[in-house]
């Protein structure tokens, strides 16, 4: 399983990559592997306000539906519309082509509440 160092993680298995006041969010390699066979994604409208820890969309695998939670608060400025047609990109490349939304952060300190790669890996190892 893959835990890149240059991104931050949530306990609900999302990741974000911070670029200035913008954050790219997706779900982790662990999450895609647990879900397996992702077949459907409900994306929010651009312009929607995301709130850290609150659902911004849902992701469906063959056997399960999960909410996706925003890692940080802010305005959703872009969504990965390619996922509507090819949701399996999330399985194939969760940290790259499988990104889900971009958020313009309203409170960049939110990032401080997130886990590092090492902390997230430990969190997974503990059986979460």
């Amino acid at each position, binding site marked *: 399983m893959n835990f890149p160092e240059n991104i931050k993680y949530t306990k609900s298995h999302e990741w974000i990559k911070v670029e200035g006041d913008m954050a790219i969010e997706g779900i982790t390699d662990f999450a895609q592997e647990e879900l*397996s*066979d992702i*077949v*459907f994604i409900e994306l929010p409208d651009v312009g929607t306000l995301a709130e850290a820890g609150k659902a911004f969309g*849902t992701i*469906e695998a*063959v*056997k399960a*539906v999960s909410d996706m939670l925003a890692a940080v608060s802010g305005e959703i400025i872009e969504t990965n519309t390619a996922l509507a047609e090819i949701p399996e990109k999330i399985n194939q490349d969760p940290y790259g082509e499988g990104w889900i939304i971009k958020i313009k952060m309203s409170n960049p300190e939110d990032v401080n509440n997130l886990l590092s790669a090492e902390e997230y890996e430990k969190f997974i190892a503990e059986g979460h």
Partner: protein
Amino acid sequence: MTKKTPFYDKHIALGGHLVDFVGFIMPTQYKGIIDEVKRIRTTVGVFDVSHMGEIEVKGPDALKFISKITINDPSALSLNQVQYSAMCYNDGGIVDDLLVYRLKKRYLLVVNASNIDKDFKWIKYNINENVTVKNISDDIAQLAIQGPDAEKVIQKLTDIDLSEIRFYWAEESKIADIETVLSRTGYTGEDGFEVYFDKKYADKMWDAIFEAGKEFNIEACGLGARDILRLEMYYRLYGNDIDSATTPIEGDLSWITRLNKTSFNGREVLLKQKVEGLTRKLVPFEMIDKGIPRQGYKIKDKDGNIIGCVTSGNLSPMLQKYIGCGYVELEYSNIDSEFTIDIRGRLLKAKVVKTPFYKDGTHK
């Protein structure tokens, strides 16, 4: 208490995702559910279905007894023929759906894993005839080898000519030098075989099948794929689509309900439903709008009134459509009838379609 099938160590070795399924530790998938669905539809794969139950019925009145407890007509069975059937309570509710095998010295009832104990109790409770029944589920291993290449794999392991076994027929014969009941059955819509044998030969059989299947890239497949395969064919799943609160007439199983038999459990209620009509019925539908219908989601009319409930639903990987089935009020049960599925608050359009959903299955 959870039970392991005799193939538990094989599933572990292959990295299967194991879950507790109705009291059995079973693999839901190995490499991916959708891959496994496509494998069965195009080449060949193997399911461990040892969790299924087997109940033997012997004695001079075996046929008469089975005719009483099942809704199909076992007297139509020739030696070595297999029949899809169901058992009902006297109120018409379904005890279980099952296969009835007519073999040389016995009948074999193959029942759902979730219902083994309940079924066996019900069967014993019904005995007034000269029969003996035995639950041999714990002694029997069962594998389903399914897919267009299944015959080529199994033919390498036996002297009998498999091309002579027709769909829903069986042979008691040796496979890989192991005594088996072999039938051309399966719940996938593809050609294939199910093989029943003494569980002490589990490893030997598994290894022989995988060795024979190597040239066809045979792989193990899990229950996740099996669930989609059966749904693509609109085969019922007990506990989802049918149960003790639904009858075979409501569950769209009139085709196995032989009301011309003079008496069997549930007949009066089923006959009444057939004559007087139903208030609700199971229907197969596909989504017009994009969304996955799932068990328990409400079915609504265009004004948002509840008219039914989804019992199974998923993506069909073969059709790239979202499909499902559910009970609806009778007026919505005709082909092309439209309604909506309440998918987490969004009312998404669906329509009743002809089945099977997947029409290119290779089953013979």
